[in-house]
């Protein structure tokens, strides 16, 4: 084993313990403390040329950092953003230049600092002893005494009237919080169970509002649909639904319309006449957590939710065949009106959307 060439702070403590005689002697220790390896100097410690070279390196890194900081300011003003951004090699010049210059300015300071520490700062091994995390005995006793003094001075134990009325006052403070928070928004009440769909309302293509005839729909077709009412105006020319009311209604009423070979469909009991010639209509809102679904594989008749991979078989009543969704996709019963367009037979017969509330 090597002998220590330098005094270590740790040794003082070891000597002190041995002097008290409370710890057993380390003679019997099967693995002797190897101590620290001998300190070997770096080239920069002994060679003045190497030292100056390292100094120049670090200064160069810091200097480059300064250059990049200045380039950051230059590119901030040089490159246009907004309607006609400057583009270099297919990238927005401003973003890329700002990111690269600021990143390099920061990085070079860090690299320079590490180089400085490794080459030039003192690298003599130093031992720092741990100390207990708790306060001293004296401090702890003082704190307990101060607390006891406070309790006895306030007389809270002797005056139950004050104590009980204080507890009562603090408890009553909870009431305003409960009342105010409860009033933050209206309770959903029956809204969760109904949508704007009703008997005779036309199914239209989303965005355009085109009404749909059965003969317009091919086998294997997918239509992202909405109720026609979102595209209708009130007598005064204003839309019947707009703003947040439109969004609220849309989140429940969005549908997908698909057409399959009628022979491929196995309708659940009681839903035999819910489709038109192989055209079926389902809620677009996943029954898991309510993502809109339209990832439809026309050959397998599977509808996949992109959020958590719940998969519904639309040829089989929207049954869940994979994933976390707990119940089938609600189906909208449809028929054809006197003008030949697809319309709803009624509203959805069950609540649409995620299944997180009680559906008694």
């Amino acid at each position, binding site marked *: 084993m090597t002998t220590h060439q330098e005094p270590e702070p740790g040794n003082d403590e070891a000597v002190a313990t041995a002097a008290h005689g409370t710890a057993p002697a380390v003679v019997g220790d099967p693995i002797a403390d190897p101590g620290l390896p*001998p300190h*070997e*100097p*770096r*080239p920069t*410690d*002994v*060679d003045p040329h190497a030292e100056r070279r390292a100094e120049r390196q670090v200064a160069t890194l810091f200097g480059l950092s300064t250059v990049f900081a200045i380039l950051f300011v230059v590119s901030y003003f040089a490159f246009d953003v907004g309607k006609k*951004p400057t*583009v270099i090699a*297919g*990238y*927005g010049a401003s*973003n*890329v230049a700002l*990111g690269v210059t600021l990143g390099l300015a920061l990085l070079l300071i*860090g690299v320079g600092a*590490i180089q400085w520490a*490794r*080459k030039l700062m003192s*690298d003599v091994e130093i031992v720092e002893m741990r100390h207990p995390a708790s306060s001293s005995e004296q401090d702890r006793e003082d704190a307990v005494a101060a607390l006891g003094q406070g309790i006895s001075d306030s007389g809270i134990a002797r005056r139950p009237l004050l104590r009980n009325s204080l507890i009562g006052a603090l408890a009553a403070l909870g009431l305003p919080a409960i009342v105010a928070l409860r009033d933050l928004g209206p309770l959903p009440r029956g809204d969760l169970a109904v949508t704007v769909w009703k008997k005779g309302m036309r199914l239209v*293509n*989303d*965005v*355009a509002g*085109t009404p*749909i*005839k059965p*003969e*317009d*729909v*091919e*086998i*294997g*077709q*997918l*239509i*992202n649909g909405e109720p026609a009412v979102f595209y209708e105006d009130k007598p005064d020319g204003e839309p019947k639904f707009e703003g947040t009311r439109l969004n609220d209604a849309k989140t429940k009423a969005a549908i997908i319309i*698909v057409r399959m070979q009628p022979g491929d469909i196995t309708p659940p009991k009681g839903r035999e006449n819910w489709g038109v010639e192989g055209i079926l209509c389902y809620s677009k809102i996943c029954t898991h957590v309510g993502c809109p*679904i*339209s*990832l*439809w*594989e*026309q*050959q*397998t008749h*599977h509808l*996949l939710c*992109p959020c958590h*991979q719940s*998969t519904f078989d639309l040829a089989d009543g929207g049954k869940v065949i*994979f994933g976390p969704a707990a119940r089938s996709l609600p189906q909208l019963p449809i028929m054809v009106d006197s003008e030949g367009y697809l319309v709803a037979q009624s509203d959805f017969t069950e609540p649409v959307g995620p299944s997180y509330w009680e559906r008694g």
Partner: protein
Amino acid sequence: MLGLVLTGGAFALFSPAQAETGQADQSTVAQGRTLFLVGCASCHGRNGEGILTERGTQYGPPLAGVGAASVDFQVGTGRMPLARPGVQAERKRVLYNPDEIKALAAYVASLAPGPSIPTASQYSVSGTDSAAVARGGQFWRTNCTACHNFAAAGGALPGGKYAPSLSGVTPKHMYEAMLTGPQQMPVFSDQVVKPSEKRDIIAYVKRLQSAPNYGGNALGNMGPVTEGMAAWIVGIGACVAFAVWIASHSVRSKKGAKA
């Protein structure tokens, strides 16, 4: 698996399409039939009637009624002829020249009415204004992003299938894909998504693809997957490299020890 795949393919190709008859002269049809007998009949049957496997599944689907548009898409993007059976026909080198594809399409269209190849005036996006592009974006986000990704970079489907990236796809082939619904893709008929709306969608995709990456490298526009990979592998990798450098032993001099 093979049977399943081919059955799937059969449905895609067999989906009845818009009844439009593309009139083509008899010599083109005859030329198409010759090409068909050599390159397609081994799977699709000598008269495009389809071939069943022993288990009753589709070996090659019947082609009556798929229309010229379907042939132009499948052969024009290299998906047909299939290199090998698989979960999905992939886009690859096109094996027929434009005249041959036209002849094949004319022959298949002569079997039964089906959607014809769209004309340039239907799919050409030259002259579409920003309003059309914006409208196309609305349709795109409503109907297409679920599978093809918000930036048309494509995405995964169950069982090894995928929605392909639209990078480098011609407007004509995009139009035909919407019209015919190849493989797992649903049909978007002209009666529901009107030809002008289809053109707006194509204009939006083309604008999207030609737009510069204002924010820097988009990492394939695949969202958190590639961004996370970059952060973990490149970002954390660099941090680890720096930590190793900081803690590594630096060069020591024997000269000093003796001195």
